[in-house]
């Protein structure tokens, strides 16, 4: 019944002759949550960035909702898309970064509405009312007029999530959303993400929070050295890893 929302096929990316991502294939069905785990430098961020084409793969294809990302066919030949066309495709995908990356010169409300108003050309009133309700959902209804610098890390990250959601994406990408947070602030962000997963949002989450992966993920992917080493249900990958590298990694992190 579920349909394939994200389809990654044989994606490879090199940085200066070093493989960052190496022949990775995976897919995410609509409404599923995929967690990607793995050691530092294993290419998790690069893969995520390939999905919304912040990084262009060297080879391989990624399609979201059946549409090829960053590639267009002309006369049967695949061509790289212009940056401008990719902008349109990115609007369907929300992204949350490790370092929040809120716009520091804008209030929370302005952060949330910048995209909808300037990019989607929505009306201000419409964008703001949706923003207000999203802020309410992540528990920050009273912070609309604060500046990012006035918020704690956990609050900032929840604003970042709301900002991405206010673009009404089909898919949410998270790159270690909690790893820049103080331990006691991690909980509130994970809670917001769990709530989001419950609403049926399709999510790809790079994370080191094994508890979260176990609880929320439909699938877990373990990457190392740019490759997918192991994939499966959280219970299988996290509790009975078959690959020695997975075992080694989990023993360090858990």
């Amino acid at each position: 019944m579920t349909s394939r929302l994200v389809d990654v096929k044989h994606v490879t990316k090199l940085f200066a002759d070093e493989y960052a991502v190496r022949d990775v294939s995976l897919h995410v069905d609509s409404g599923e949550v995929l967690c990607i785990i793995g050691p530092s430098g294993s290419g998790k961020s690069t893969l995520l960035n390939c999905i919304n084409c912040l990084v262009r793969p060297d080879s391989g294809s990624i399609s979201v909702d059946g549409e090829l990302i960053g590639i267009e066919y002309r006369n049967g030949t695949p061509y790289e898309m212009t940056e401008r066309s990719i902008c349109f495709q990115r609007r369907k995908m929300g992204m949350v970064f490790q370092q929040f990356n809120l716009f520091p010169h804008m209030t929370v409300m302005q952060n949330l509405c910048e995209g909808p108003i300037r990019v989607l050309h929505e009306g201000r009133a419409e964008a703001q009312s949706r923003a207000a309700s999203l802020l309410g959902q992540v528990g920050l209804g009273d912070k609309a007029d604060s500046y990012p610098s006035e918020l704690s890390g956990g609050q900032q990250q929840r604003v970042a999530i709301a900002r991405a959601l206010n673009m009404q994406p089909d898919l949410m990408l998270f790159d270690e959303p909690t790893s820049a947070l103080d331990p006691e602030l991690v909980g509130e962000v994970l809670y917001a993400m769990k709530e989001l997963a419950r609403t049926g949002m399709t999510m790809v989450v790079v994370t080191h929070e094994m508890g979260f992966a176990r609880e929320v993920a439909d699938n877990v992917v373990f990457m190392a050295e740019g490759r997918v080493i192991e994939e499966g249900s959280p219970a299988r990958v996290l509790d009975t890893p078959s690959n020695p590298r997975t075992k080694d990694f989990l023993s360090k992190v858990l």
Partner: protein
Amino acid sequence: MNDRADNVTAAATSDEGGQLTPGLVPVKRKHPGQWAATLVATVLIILIAISVSTNPGFEWPVVGQYLFDVRILEGLLKTLELTVIAMAIGLVLGTLLALMRLSNNRLLNVLSWLYIWFFRSIPPLVQLIFWYNFAALYQTLKIGIPFGPSLLEANTNSIISPFTAAILGLGLAQAAYTAEVIRGGILSVPRGQFLAARAVGMPGALIMRRIILPQSMKVIIPPIGNEVISMIKNTSLVSVISFAELLYSAQLIYSRTYQTIPLLIVACIWYLVVVSLFTLGQSFVERKYRER
């Protein structure tokens, strides 16, 4: 261990506003030297002020006589006008050049580099003379096919008025300097901001305008302040092509009356006023951009 736990629990149980056990309070270091120095400095400044105001060489009555002279005021206006327009050209063109310098397009890159190299090298005096007398070299400006027929033709002198020449000479050079400053500013914005804006689906121009440039202001403003203040005074170079701004207006008067020092003081007073007002405005804008 227990004694510790105990004595701490006592402190912990005292309520929120509870009495603090007063600890040792050291006497703050006094700075008698600093006070003395302040006194000395103040006295020195007063002495200089007295010396300056009583020295007959400064000819204060003459200063008073010319301070609001209509020629001086007209010169001041010209100075402001030139500064604003040349700086505007410098900022717009400079931003463009900075973006070209930072773009991945090799051609734009090289062109921008060439422009900055050339216009920073040629003294503004020469540029002014050159633009003013462009006609000596090219009597008519033609738009047309190289070596072929010309489509549009116009007398150079009629197109390049003295004012145009002044603006070109000052503005084009300023753009080269400004480009370097803005480039530094753009590079100072964390890359994450760019990525975040991209991830929201913003196209490049919008990212620059809404996200990167506003944030680079913090770094850009102080050196641009320097540039504006330089420009206020550099406008005096346009006197070479018949444009009487503040300083040259003063020079025109003293070259007749030989009251050099008092008239230079008149000019300086106005420069001080203008620069002070500008600095005030700058620190205001700076605070605004530094707040967040």
